[in-house]
């Protein structure tokens, strides 16, 4: 183990060290036992990422200025990164356990796909930040702390982890989560302070419970110390200003009124044909009885020999006989015509029941 801090300048005599040269230099120093780095970067990518100390249990420390994209990308537990000033896109991309502090703003897609560790930002983060964060239950959930606000489309497809957007210094900003936040979010929790709007319909906005408040009390303390802003603690711990966003349970659909309800409560009373037609909007089944029959049997006594064949053959038992007079029960008869067919004397005749409504 070597306790000496490795200082790296990446721009010497106007010659810039490439990303490959810098990262391979860092790796070789780590293999030599160094753990602490102070890097004056010049836009190199992936600084602090996918590295681990030579000795088990040792911590890697990076202090970086002027990094390129993907600071702390694919970084592991045991890595601590501190960026003095702002960092461009993809801070903590696929972070798997590092603590990354940016003392400034972050570009787009900060904390993108992070599944572990903590990301602390003392300023604002760009569009699509927090997108696709996830939580593997075998590890601690990722945390993403932002002092100010996010750009639009934040937390798209978020699947797990915790994000905290403190909404500090956001006067004049309509939504501290930008527009169209949380689209496709299926898991995780976002704590947010200040005004926000335009979040997707797949999430619900809740008030904090005691557990949430405890988490924030402790977490904010740690976060504000990390970004050297402890003085803000009191102003950020008025929890009436905070809300929690979580996805709706899987399968929840927005409840809309049915078309039937719409017709009965909003539509023109009595229907648009109501001044011509008194329609009760009931539906005839198939086959129907009563007025729903296409044809209706009529009985004519002239030749009736009272044989009772019609009575016995009617599938609906709809034929009635009183004093040798035959009739049909309109609530039972479906107008099938079997009475007409079986009568040896042609006493039954089917008549059309086609008529207009009035």
């Amino acid at each position, binding site marked *: 183990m070597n306790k000496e801090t490795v200082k790296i300048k990446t721009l010497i005599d106007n010659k810039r060290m490439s990303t490959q040269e810098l990262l391979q230099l860092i790796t070789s120093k780590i293999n030599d036992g160094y753990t602490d780095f102070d890097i004056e970067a010049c836009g190199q990518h992936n600084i602090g990422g996918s590295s681990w100390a030579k000795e088990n249990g040792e911590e890697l420390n990076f202090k970086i200025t002027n990094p390129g994209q993907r600071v702390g990308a694919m970084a592991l537990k045991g890595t601590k990164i501190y960026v003095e000033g702002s960092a461009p896109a993809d801070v903590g991309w696929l972070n798997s356990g590092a603590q990354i502090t940016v003392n400034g703003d972050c570009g787009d897609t900060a904390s993108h796909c992070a599944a572990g560790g903590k990301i602390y930002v003392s300023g604002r983060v760009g569009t699509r930040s927090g997108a696709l964060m996830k939580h593997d239950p075998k590890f601690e959930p990722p945390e993403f702390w932002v002092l100010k606000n996010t750009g639009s489309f934040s937390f*798209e497809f978020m699947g797990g982890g915790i994000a905290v957007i403190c909404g500090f210094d956001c006067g004049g900003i309509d939504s501290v989560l930008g527009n*169209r936040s949380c*689209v*496709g979010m299926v898991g995780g929790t976002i704590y947010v302070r200040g005004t926000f709007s335009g979040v*997707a319909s797949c999430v619900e906005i809740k008030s904090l419970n005691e557990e949430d408040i405890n988490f924030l009390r402790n977490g904010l303390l740690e976060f504000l110390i990390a970004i050297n802003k402890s003085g803000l603690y009191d102003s950020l711990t008025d929890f009436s200003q905070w809300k929690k966003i979580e996805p709706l349970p899987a399968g929840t659909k927005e409840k*809309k*009124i*049915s*078309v*039937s309800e*719409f*017709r009965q409560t*909003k*539509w*023109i009373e009595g*229907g*648009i*044909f*109501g*001044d*011509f*037609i008194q*329609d009760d*909007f*009931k*539906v*005839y089944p*198939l*086959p*129907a009885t009563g*007025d*729903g*029959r*296409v*044809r209706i049997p009529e009985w004519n006594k002239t030749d009736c020999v009272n044989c009772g064949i019609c009575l016995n*053959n009617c*599938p*609906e038992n709809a034929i009635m006989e009183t004093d040798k007079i035959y009739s049909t029960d309109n609530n039972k008869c*479906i*107008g*099938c*015509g*079997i009475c*007409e*067919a*079986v009568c040896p004397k042609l006493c039954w005749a089917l008549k059309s*029941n*086609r*008529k*207009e*409504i*009035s």
Partner: protein
Amino acid sequence: MEAVKINQLHLDDLPWIVEYDENKCIQCGRCTAACSFGAIKPVVEKRRKPSTGLQKPAFDRLLVIKQNVSFEHHCRGCGMCTRVCPNGAIKAVRNPNDKYSVRYRAAKADSVKKGGRSNLNTEGRTLDKIKIGRISQMTDPSLDAARHQFELRTPFGRVLSADKLSLHNVNGKMELSSQLPPNRWIYPIIMGDMSIGAVSWRMWEAMAIATAYLNEVMGMPVRMCTGEGGIPVRLLKSRYVKYMILQIASGHFGWNRIIQSMPEMTEDPAGILIKIGQGAKPGDGGLLMASKVAKYVQEIRGVPRADLLSPPTHQGLYSIEESVQKMFLSMNAAFNFRVPVAIKTAASVTSVSVYNNLLRDPYNIVGGFFLDGLAAGTGAAHEISLNHTGHPITSKLRDCYLAAVHQGRQGEIPLFAGGGLGQTGSFAADAFKLICLGANGVFTGRMLLEIAGCIGNETGKCNACNTGLCPAGIATQDLCLTKRLDIDVAAQNIVNYFIANDIELKKLMGPVGNSTLPIGRSDALITVDKHISNRLDIQYIC
């Protein structure tokens, strides 16, 4: 036993043969009760029992279901009997030896009429031979169909090119010195165009309810065209009229009531559609058979019960120029130039000339050109028109669009295409492809009927809309049949279908990478058919 004469209509001449299995039948009478055409009836049949000895043979009597053989009561193959039979004992089977049309003409000295759609299937649809092949792959991001915010609205109304805008500088501010032509941003699928009378009051109201619901609950600005049979006054005077496109066709039915209601209307209609012709029977006027001219239809239309034949042409119009001068001006004037006015014609080899003429409209009053292809449906038509006249929609829509493109005037008069969309199962794909070929939007009627419960198809099943005996309660005015249709289910199904289509349209816009309607994006389309590729000017692939 009755003797048979050779010229008599026989079972074997009919288009459908009812297959019946007496061993499965329980004689419950449901099939005959449900058949709106009276095409089947119970009868007692005599059956001979074989003689086992010296005695004479005896006869059994058996109650069976038999098919009617008559021009008035023949089976249309609707299949209601099969639906209600508890045992699967009965079904209608297509008769390959069908001679019905010949027999009908010979017996009645009249043309054959039918409803539904054309039943001469040619060799497949053009739209089915086109795929969406220009997919965003690293060139530009594909859009997430489920989550991206898409803008599907399309303009309905005259669009002026920038140089035609009457803008001028007033104290450093741009101001218009004259009124812009009316324009509405609407959903690109227009529904309806089916008249009161052609469809039952429940079906028509179900479409109107679905339209209102889609607008007010779903936030989808879907518009419905009334068809040529007028519009109920209650709807005219309601706020929902703003979702309705009023149609005026050659019969001018229902306009008396529209005019009478004008002083009491609180909202403008969405638009006016001048119907010159329709795709299912181009060059022929509307036809509403007397059996469907119910009392309320008589009142709204101002006619007695009779076969209502609209003239094939608007009688005051003799040329395209005159149509623009007279008809467009009058219909624009009707609502004081606040409401866009469009025109619908059947697709024809002449469509491009018409469109070119309209594009020269000097008054900026032509608000849209609707083209109806030959696969469209109809409530009633002469079979000869239905089967033998018309022009497919795809190439004609494309021709019109390209004609405008060559003048740098595409989009100035929005194009809407219809006729047989969704015939092979995917309405959204058909709509999307037509939009890529240059349509601003599409319109549909037939699809709505199917969604509501129509059981007809393109191969002759049912297609009896003209008889007024619609077994589904859709194309009828009879109480007993109309009440088979559940107005709420029909409206809900239409709503659901629009929502499903909306998802599917976005599912196609996403891969192409368009946030807005890809009007004219023919680069997105490919075909393995060289002729289609040449004709439509889209990429040939293999």
